[in-house]
């Protein structure tokens, strides 16, 4: 593997605190050196000119659905990781709601095998219970050994108190988090969007905020009892956010991620039944959206994750209530974060990099990632924070097209994505 020198970029590394023009030398899959511009001249034959660009530790998406095994008509590991690379993600963490459910060492290994053709690092999240049926815990220790970074029954929340308690306790011993999709499904049966004025107007049954908040409150209490690490997936309500804020203040091991769509869109954006705005948790009210922005600013929210959920045309272009939940998100996450959080709300770029790389690495214990410190993995995301461009879904690397952001004009674009010192995506 040939060395690669990234020259004259503005290196933003929340872990080392670096934010200035530097050259970065990558060699043998690692960051070999970070030095003042020109100091490393000639150290590598391959160079990338990064003048005017941000050079950041590779982004880590904590929450994606790659659909393999079993649902390859929606996405494959090849297409999903290609989309990840195009979105600046050097690592993705794949949820276990595949067919069959990833609750085993075998499926975890199958997903991680070289033949699957992943172009970025793939870290599976295994099911917390066998077949995600909420009855019996899986073998966390063996799964961790096989490369799993967390456990979750994403989409089928663990509602049973005892089971969640045991999951947190077992995970705590292994120092892995339990990721919970917080939804009291007893309150949301038959619902296809958020409960509010928009759902009334559209004549659709709505999911109340309490369906999320109640589960988060319960999980926090269990985290206190067990000292387990609770990671709240795709937080969407102000009540749940308040609960996480209080938990953090009292020193609990509770972390939370937010999706770009939840801090950007609201339920009213569904318009006349556009299923590209249908996901779970649903888009909430403007008050919730504003609270999420506040939570990003004040540090309550730790990470931005996409919940990339590709679906085929025939699964989305049906009656709203029958359409599958979920939207794609890998290629639009950075552009939305930069456009909305940085340019509109003035959030520093360093904080955005933290939300997309160093914090996810810490939460999932991905050692040597989320930083460009010497010796770290040579995973790098290079982006232009000021480039204006239009997202055209027909150019997407994903197999699916279910996004509400087609045609959006963004400021901020990924220029190159480097995994283990190799360029896996280059703009143009």
């Amino acid at each position, binding site marked *: 593997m040939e060395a690669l020198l990234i020259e004259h970029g503005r290196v933003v590394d929340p872990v080392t605190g670096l934010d200035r023009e530097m050259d970065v030398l990558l060699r043998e899959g690692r960051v070999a050196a970070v030095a003042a511009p020109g100091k490393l001249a000639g150290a590598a034959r391959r160079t990338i000119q990064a003048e005017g660009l941000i050079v950041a530790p590779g982004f880590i998406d904590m929450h994606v659905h790659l659909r393999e095994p079993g649902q390859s008509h929606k996405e494959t590991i090849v297409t999903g990781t290609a989309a990840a690379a195009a979105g600046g993600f050097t690592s993705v963490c794949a949820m276990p709601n595949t067919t069959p459910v990833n609750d085993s060492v075998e499926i975890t290994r199958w997903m991680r095998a070289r033949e699957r053709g992943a172009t970025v690092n793939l870290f599976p999240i295994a099911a917390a219970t066998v077949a995600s049926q909420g009855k019996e815990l899986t073998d966390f220790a063996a799964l961790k050994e096989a490369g799993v970074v967390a456990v979750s029954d994403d989409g089928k929340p663990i509602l049973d108190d005892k089971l969640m308690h045991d999951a947190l306790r077992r995970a705590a011993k292994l120092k892995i988090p339990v990721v919970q999709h917080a939804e009291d499904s007893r309150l949301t049966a038959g619902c296809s969007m958020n409960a*509010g*004025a928009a759902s*009334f*107007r*559209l*004549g*659709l049954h709505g999911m109340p905020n309490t369906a999320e908040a109640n589960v988060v409150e319960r999980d926090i209490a269990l985290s206190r009892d067990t000292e387990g690490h609770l990671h709240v997936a795709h937080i969407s309500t102000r009540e749940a956010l308040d609960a996480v804020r209080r938990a953090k203040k009292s020193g609990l091991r509770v972390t939370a991620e937010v999706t770009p769509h939840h801090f950007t869109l609201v339920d009213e954006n569904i318009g*006349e*039944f556009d299923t590209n705005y249908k996901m779970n948790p649903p888009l909430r009210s403007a008050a919730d959206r504003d609270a999420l922005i506040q939570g990003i600013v004040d540090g309550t929210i730790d990470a931005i994750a996409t919940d990339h959920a590709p679906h085929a045309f*025939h699964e989305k*272009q*049906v*009656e*709203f*209530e*029958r359409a599958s939940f979920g939207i794609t998100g890998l290629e639009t996450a950075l552009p939305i974060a930069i456009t909305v959080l940085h340019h509109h709300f003035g959030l520093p770029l360093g904080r955005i990099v933290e939300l997309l790389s160093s914090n996810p690495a810490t939460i999932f214990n991905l050692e040597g990632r989320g930083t460009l410190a010497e010796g770290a993995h040579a995973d790098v995301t290079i982006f232009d924070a000021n480039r204006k461009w239009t997202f055209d879904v027909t150019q997407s690397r994903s197999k699916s097209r279910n996004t509400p952001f087609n045609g959006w004009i963004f400021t901020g674009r990924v220029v190159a994505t480097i995994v283990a010192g190799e360029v896996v995506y280059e703009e143009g």
Partner: protein
Amino acid sequence: MKPLHSLLGTDQLTTAQIESILALARHMDPRRAKQLLRGKRVVLLFYEPSTRTRTSFEFAAQALGATTTLIAASSSSVEKGESLIDTGRTVTALGADVIVMRHPNSGAPYLLSRYVPTSIVNAGDGMHQHPSQALLDALTITNHKKKLTGLRVVIVGDVFHSRVARSNAHLLSKFGAEIIFCGPPDLVPDVAALIAPGVTACHDLNAALRDADVVMSLRVQKERLAGRELGLEEYVEKYQINCERMKLARPDAILMHPGPIIRGSELTSEVADGPQSVVCEQVANGVKIRMAILATVMGASR
């Protein structure tokens, strides 16, 4: 005025479009109509059982000289798993000029209208809208009240599940009427008031009825009350419209109901058959308004 290609919801209509449909309907006589739609094919695509709306559209289409075909969900390929878009495309390829559609899912006609060029008339989609009902209600009201502006219209009952309530609220709001949704909190949530300007939500029927010009009663199904805090008995006590309560409204108030009526539930027989009731007139107006709607979306009204 913008020509109307499809009738999906009353919120999308301009007052000029509404007034034009009402004016046309006033001139429609089902027994001696001009054959404005001769040779046209009207497909009635019904995914949900319906007697009155379906018959009303059938008579309306036939009165104008169109041929009609009923596709009922139970007897067609939809049961074999064909998607709505594919069914719509098939019906269009067969030569349908208009698709009149009834569907249990809110928004279904909106989906279809994005994928087929054929005119679509929404004959009721889930809990969402029933625009032809709101138009026939407007026709009925204006027969008695001359204008909609400034009227106090009380819509009583299961507003939450009612597409009729939603379509009426949008339409009446456009003309500056005052609309009061009234019923128990479970069936009249506070957010209902945000549907359009001039709409309020109220849980006290006696207060709502005071000085009402129009009282619109909605069907209350026992199974919809199941699992809620309110039983049918208590509903009747608090929200049933009876002669006593009708006296709170203006003396010249009219009583409406989209049907089917459940006597003894949302209203008493005395009220349903009383002098203020215009329920049968609504049904008769239904054919006229649907003639006007079909002629309008087919561009045959001029």
